[in-house]
């Protein structure tokens, strides 16, 4: 890996210039090259190429715009960083580095903005051409071992996939497996991994039992739509979409079954224990926040969480009442029809039957509107409530990283004190050996402390970027979906007008 990092020497020098100017790392410039590479080697326990790109750019978290002035020089290192570090060793089956870069290279001319964030967005925005659809739920198997298989179709012009359009069959536990893999890889370094749809034992059991009724159909539809949104969110993320697990999920026809996602498995129990431990830890860690940005953002997300939950509850209640309204309207329609039948004045009788018809159409309208309420508005809010939980999790990881760093620092302190004490003991025979031991330990711990600090800086940087990306996505999502929802309301009203306009002459015709 370090070989690769040294590959294009000329660009390296540019890069080193930059480093010297900023003078970020306390190490001498010579080790700078190996610095980032080794950082990445240690950072990522599993195969991923995500953070590498970032570590190269964000030298100084406070001075984000330092790169801006050195915009032109940033170009080549950035490109070549991608060239060299782009696909990690893990993406062995996929094509050589250049394929990842080709889309980027085309946008050289666009990299003339002054804001670093904008660069990220342009890159993400122009590359993002993927479209994923989840469709055709079909029941496979029988009885309690039955499950629903969903067809996942991907359409993408990106050349890192073998074909432009392909589809695979996946089941729900596959999606959960994908999420748990991504979470274990990315959450602890600060990436906001979109949460997968929730399990529902009741819903699934109904489907398994085989009742082909309204509620189980609704459940399957709800799940299908949730899975589609989940996949789209995952691939919208510029780092996650290049992850080999994601690509394997989308492409390969056979996926190893993710048994660890079952609620009653040993992995499930382990998860529960971990969650409890985390909750306790969270209460005990008291971090002194040096960066006001994080505190502000955490507060912001807390508030947002509360408000979104409230709004979600109201919208769910609206959906419920609208469905009720639809049912009651249908019943009234039937009753009015009966009344019309028993009425012996012909014109009035006809008008009453017309009223019954209008009400029946309106009940269908209410039903459709309730569906729109749900699928557009309520699910959006539910998704965001879960996403914010993921965001809060990321902030928690940052705290844990900080804690680790502080712990190793304290340990280092203690060792140093122990060393100092050794200096003053009067046991010459043991002294040299003990001194050497302690020196070794101190060196180790020192490296650990620095690693911890780097990790902390890294996660903070990543979180900043992620949060700004998240906020942009949130604004976009809310705007698009709420406008869609309002348009659905417009349509409902237009239909209503049509129906009542048709009824009015009938009512007038009663003589």
């Amino acid at each position, binding site marked *: 890996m370090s070989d690769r990092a040294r590959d294009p020497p000329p660009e390296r020098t540019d890069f080193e210039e930059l480093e010297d100017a900023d003078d970020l790392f306390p190490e001498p410039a010579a080790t700078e090259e190996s610095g980032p590479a080794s950082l990445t080697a240690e950072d990522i326990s599993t195969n991923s190429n995500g953070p590498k790109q970032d570590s190269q750019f964000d030298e100084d978290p406070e001075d984000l715009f330092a790169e801006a002035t050195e915009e032109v020089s940033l170009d080549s290192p950035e490109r070549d960083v991608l060239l060299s570090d782009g696909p990690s060793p893990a993406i062995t089956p996929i094509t050589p580095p250049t394929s990842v870069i080709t889309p980027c290279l085309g946008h050289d001319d666009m990299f003339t903005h002054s804001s670093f964030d904008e660069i990220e967005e342009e890159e993400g925005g122009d590359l993002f051409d993927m479209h994923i659809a989840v469709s055709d739920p079909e029941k496979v198997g029988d009885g309690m071992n039955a499950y629903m298989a969903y067809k996942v179709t991907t359409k993408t012009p990106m050349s890192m996939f073998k074909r432009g359009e392909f589809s695979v069959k996946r089941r729900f536990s596959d999606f959960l497996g994908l999420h748990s893999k991504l979470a274990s890889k990315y959450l602890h370094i600060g990436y906001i991994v979109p949460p997968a749809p929730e399990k529902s034992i009741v819903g699934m059991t109904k489907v398994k039992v085989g009742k082909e009724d309204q509620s189980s159909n609704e459940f399957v539809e709800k799940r299908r739509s949730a899975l589609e949104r989940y996949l789209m969110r995952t691939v919208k993320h510029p780092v996650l979409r290049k992850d080999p697990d994601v690509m394997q999920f989308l492409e390969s026809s056979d996926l190893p079954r993710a048994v660890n996602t079952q609620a009653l498995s040993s992995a499930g129990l382990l998860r529960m224990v971990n969650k409890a431990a985390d909750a306790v830890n969270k209460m005990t860690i008291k971090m002194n926040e040096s960066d006001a940005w994080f505190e502000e953002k955490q507060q912001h997300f807390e508030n947002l969480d509360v408000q979104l939950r409230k*709004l979600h509850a109201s919208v769910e209640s*609206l959906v419920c009442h609208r469905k009720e309204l639809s049912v009651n309207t249908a*019943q009234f329609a039937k009753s009015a029809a009966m009344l019309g039948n028993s009425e*012996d004045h012909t014109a009035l009788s006809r008008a009453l039957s017309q009223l019954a018809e209008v009400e029946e159409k309106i009940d269908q309208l209410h039903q459709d509107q309730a569906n729109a309420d749900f699928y557009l508005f309520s699910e959006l809010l539910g998704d965001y409530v879960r996403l914010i939980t993921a965001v809060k999790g990321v902030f928690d990881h940052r705290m844990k990283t900080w804690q680790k760093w502080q712990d190793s620092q304290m340990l280092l302190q203690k060792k140093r004190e122990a060393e100092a004490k050794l200096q003053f003991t009067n046991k010459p025979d043991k002294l040299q050996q003990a001194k050497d031991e302690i020196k070794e330990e101190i060196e180790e711990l020192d490296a650990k402390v620095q690693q911890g600090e780097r990790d902390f800086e890294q996660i903070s940087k990543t979180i900043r970027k992620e949060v700004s990306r998240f906020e942009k996505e949130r604004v976009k999502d809310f705007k698009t979906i709420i406008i869609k929802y309002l348009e659905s309301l*417009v349509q409902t009203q237009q239909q209503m007008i049509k129906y009542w306009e048709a009824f009015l002459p009938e009512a007038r015709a009663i003589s």
Partner: protein
Amino acid sequence: MTKEEFTKMKQELEAEYLAIFKKTVAMHEVFLCRVAAHPVLRKDLNFHVFLEYNQDLSVRGKNKKEKLEDFFKNVVKSADGVLVGGVKDVDDFFEHEKTFLLEYHNRVKDASAKCDRMIRSHKSASDDINRIASSLYTLGTQDSTDLCKFFLKVSELFEKTRKIEARVAADEDLKLADLLKYYLRESQAAKDLLYRRSRALVDYENANKALDKARAKNRDVLQAETSQQLSCHKFEKISESAKQELIDFKTRRVSAFRKNLVELAELELKHAKGNLQLLQSCVGILKGNT
């Protein structure tokens, strides 16, 4: 509660009160017009006093004793009604009316109940929209991104549409539900009329039988004759007026339904158009801003 919430609640309560007031006023008006239109009832002295006396009428409500009396009378009446109802009528018109009214009454009762349920769901849906509007408002004030203006605008929109939805529910209540409730009671009154006529018929037949018995025994013939003549007269009078009343009932029913259904349709249209305009203008503004 903040000041805004307080003023909003006050407005809501006022709107509700206004709706209920409109309903009650409409009911009273229908009642008085009915009495005035009736050829016999309009000449009633009580009615004239009610319309003209410009000071407080001080009407005493029924006290407990009277209420209890009413209750027992009802029980006796319904028992009697069952007995009397079994008698088949000679007159076709009345027979047909009886069956018709029975069926109609039941169906109107059903329709009225379902209509009430429908309107209640409508009201709870509009209450939800109210809560959504206020949540969106809080979100809008808290948010620091582009979304704040967006949310505020949508919150405002929902406020307005909710008012319209509430008015739709109220109008439906006024025109449709009240109509059905009124005809529920009217059909009950018509059934009562028929009952009274059947009662009179039974009495008449009993008097006939008594007369025949008296003639056979040649005792109290005159008494039996007079009572028979009385009940015959009563029966014929009631039959005549009943016929007229039932025909009137039909015409009134048809015209009341017509009026209310037309008004219902017009109001629904008006509100739907208003709603549509609000929504379209809001969507236009929001799309223009993004």
